[in-house]
């Protein structure tokens, strides 16, 4: 297995298209345009990227960003060995070398000085200078950069610089509309559409409360979790409380309201 193969997505991931995003992505990839995907947590951003990598049959390197991440974590660094130092490629460098799709998940979590290292890769240059090593990498023709972030809970501090933003073609994802979402939940867990649509209704309740005590509504991912629990034989109300309500809030009033919504929905 080559280095390239280990990053390949081998099995088709389930992805339900909301409009024509697959075709749009293919067009962006054909032009090797960097892509940005925005959307609330758990709405299918990562799944989409995974699906596209599978569809295009390209390796996918995913980096989960966090605030302790530094430029060297992306690009690479010297490590110490018995005979001196050795250069170790970071994930971004690897992707540029082997021609993978490099997916930086939750990019705003990374510090701004870290984010700028992607700049030369995302314009016409398509190069990555490794200044510490004194090397200039020409990106492989298959290489593409994808970033994702969640504009919902960002504070003033957590926003992308304009200079970063304006290097990407962007998709804006949101939770699918009720019927589609019920279909997704049903498809993911093999449950009846009717029960799935009840879960979706409870999800909608929490999404209505966003900004009124909730930072983020119940995501499609959590709905799938709840459905999985129900599938596993848990009583639906308990499953909803466990998978939908308790994870998202510590606020007693909101918990009460959502519990009431569960009771009201299941009748």
């Amino acid at each position: 297995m080559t280095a390239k193969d280990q990053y390949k997505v081998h099995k088709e991931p389930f992805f339900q298209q909301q409009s024509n995003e697959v075709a749009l992505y293919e067009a962006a990839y054909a032009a090797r345009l960097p892509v940005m995907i925005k959307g609330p947590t758990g709405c299918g951003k990562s799944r989409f990227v995974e699906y596209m990598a599978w569809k295009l049959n390209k390796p996918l390197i995913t980096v989960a960003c966090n605030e302790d991440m530094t430029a060297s974590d992306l690009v690479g660094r010297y490590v110490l060995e018995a005979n001196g130092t050795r250069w170790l490629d970071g994930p971004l460098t690897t992707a540029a070398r082997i021609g993978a799709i490099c997916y930086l998940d939750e990019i705003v979590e990374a510090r701004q000085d870290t984010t700028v290292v992607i700049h030369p890769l995302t314009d016409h240059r398509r190069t990555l200078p490794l200044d510490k090593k004194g090397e200039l990498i020409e990106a492989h023709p298959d290489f593409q950069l994808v970033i994702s972030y969640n504009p919902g809970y960002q504070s003033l501090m957590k926003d992308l610089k304009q200079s970063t933003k304006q290097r990407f073609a962007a998709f804006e994802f949101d939770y699918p509309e009720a019927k589609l979402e019920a279909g997704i939940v049903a498809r993911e867990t093999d449950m009846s559409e009717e029960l799935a649509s009840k879960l979706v209704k409870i999800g909608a309740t929490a999404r209505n409360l966003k900004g009124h005590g909730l930072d983020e509504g119940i995501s499609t991912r959590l709905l799938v979790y709840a459905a999985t629990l129900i599938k596993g034989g848990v009583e639906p109300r308990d499953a909803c409380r466990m998978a939908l309500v308790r994870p998202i809030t510590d606020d007693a009033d909101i918990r009460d309201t959502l519990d009431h919504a569960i009771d009201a929905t299941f009748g």
Partner: protein
Amino acid sequence: MAEAHTEYEHPLMKGYREQLGCGFPQVADVFEDCMAEALSALSGEGIDAYLEYARFLCKMGRGVEPVLIFLEEWPSVATTLGESALPALKGFIHKMYKSPNGKAIVPFLQSLAAIARRLHSQEQMQDYMDLTLDFMARTTGSIHGIHATFASPGLPEFFQQTPFLLSQVSVAGLKNWVEYGIRNYHDHPDRQRDYFSLQSADSRAMMQRERSGTLLFDNERKLDMTLRGLWNVSDHFVPYSLKFDELRKPIPYYDKLGIRLPDVYDDFVVPGGPLSNSPPLGGREGNSLPAGEIIVSGLDRYRAVLAHIVGHKRWTAAIFADNMSPFQRMSAEFLEDSRVEYLAMRQYPGLRRIFLALHPVPAEDACDPAKESAVRHRLAMLSRAILDANHPYTNPDIIEFAQRFHAMMAQSESSTQEMADLAIAFGARTHRQSDQLPKIHFQDTEIDYRDDNRQMWKFIEEGDEEEAFDQNRKVELEEEIKGLPPRHYPEWDYNSQTYRPDWASVYEALHPQGNATDIDRLLEKHSALAKRLKRMLDLLKPQEKVRIRYQEEGSELDLDVALRSLIDFKSGATPDPRINMSHKTSGRDIAVMLLLDLSESLNEKAAGSEQTILDLSQEAVSLLAWAVDKLGDPFAIGGFHSNTRHDVRYLHIKGYSEQWNDEIKGRLAAMKAGYSTRMGAAMRHAAHYLEAQKADKKLMLILTDGQPADVDTKDERLLIEDARQAVKELDQKGIYAYCINLDNRLKPGADEYVSDIFGRQYTVIDNIQRLPERLPELFIALTK
């Protein structure tokens, strides 16, 4: 009359009459009836004691009323409390009799039976009497503390209210309520009377606090979230009280100002429990449950009302009422109510449980159509039949129309007009002559979670009355609201260690504008100082990047350390693995609120200066604002003064999102002083802005020149203690309060109150002339 009695009097009765030996003719009128009741309720000794005490009351010199009431009420009181309650009662009345409060004996006796029914036990009765004695002792006036000479003004009013009060609160709650009244109004007879007769607003507010049940106030947030979450609607809630409008029981409704809801709902419980105020169950769900079991919680009752009202908002289209008779309208309302509930339940099936439990089940044969009008009864049955598939009714019309309703709903959402048509058909089918009877059967036909349907109708004509032409139609918008509505804050009462709820009203307004160049001129005047400050500020500015060395994991290899480590390694020693370094930004994260006291005393000249304290404060604040702006910390300025607790003014000078510009300078330039210093309320108000800031450290600077005081507060300590409490509250919210005190009176010890309020977090600036330089310096020192 008296002769007529003696003529037929039973010899035994005559004996009792002599034992009583009371000469009032009114007593003779009722004596036999009372005696008959007493004989059935009391034992032999009980009768003797009864007559003996009645005899005493008769001779007491308070007229005929005490004895009359006692004769009438005691037998029933004795049945609930037991005869042995009499000695305690006697002792109580005797104490009242010996005090100047003799006049209160009659109201006390009048309320006795009702109170006894409420309290049920002698222990509780004793608690109640102890409480009353305490009340009496503390409100009875005295001159020179020697003789109790003035009757308690509130006591008679209190006795009149107790039966009602005890129906709402427990004895302990009553005690708190009384305690509050005495504490605040013991020296003010008129207000005391208002309080104890439940006339004044805070009297009702206090009672409401002691109430049991689910208060709207406590659950507003939950209900608001229910509205948003489940129905995606937002609206205001306006509470109304059920308790002070005995004749016309208000019911929920909504209009453009918001949804009107009762201020409190009791849990809906199976009757028979200790706290049951619920209506009888009829055939409702829960008959098999033990008494006292909660069927629908108060919160769910609110939610039922909300679901119903939202249903109307969503699905009801107003129809013309002019061509329909009142009965037809009522029928249409019942059916429309059923329709919106049906649609609501289609979305949330779980509501059915709540509706089923709350909807009354009128018994089919409860109403005799020959004697009373059965319109409401029929409609309530129809409504139940629509809601409840397992309804008990056999009337073919009810069943048919319930089916027709479901057939209409099965196809679509139907409409208000279709419901009105169905209602007219139902009316035509079931109409009877007796529907016109004046006596209407109401029992079990009121569905208390439904609104009054005022939004369902529109009228072509306002009314038939001819005199209506000059009616002023625009009732609203009489007074335009100036500024923001008041916010109410509690105030700490150190005497009782409790908060007075919603005591101070804070009105917030924009500070008036002045000339911004004045401030620029002030800044220029202090340009030398500004330069010095600038140097200090530069030192304070965050140093952005700081290098952290000796990291096992870091962004870069720290070559010095790495080489050392490598040498260690090569020479066979254990190398230090911490060979990386990383960077971190050290930032400043402080939000500041500057609260200015703008009370009258600022107009005084500062000692040894030509300038007033106000002028100096203005200079100081301008410099500080300039300095903080340079630093880039989020910064707000507010001023306050007060004129009694009803009018605490908070003047907005600079908000967090505003830049330090001419507008702000203009406001600073227009600073004026007047009125008093109610510091606690202003601090609480300022804190709610500061609290919302996202910063690690929150600092509230309070610039004041004197102790908190207001014209409506006699007790000097009160506002000081309140401010101290406010500081504690700020502390709990993570806000650091710091006082800069400009006490002009250079008396030693005059600033003791500052340390009482702020502990050690204060500075007294005695040389006020130096304030302009001291204030920014202080700020810098505080935030270094």
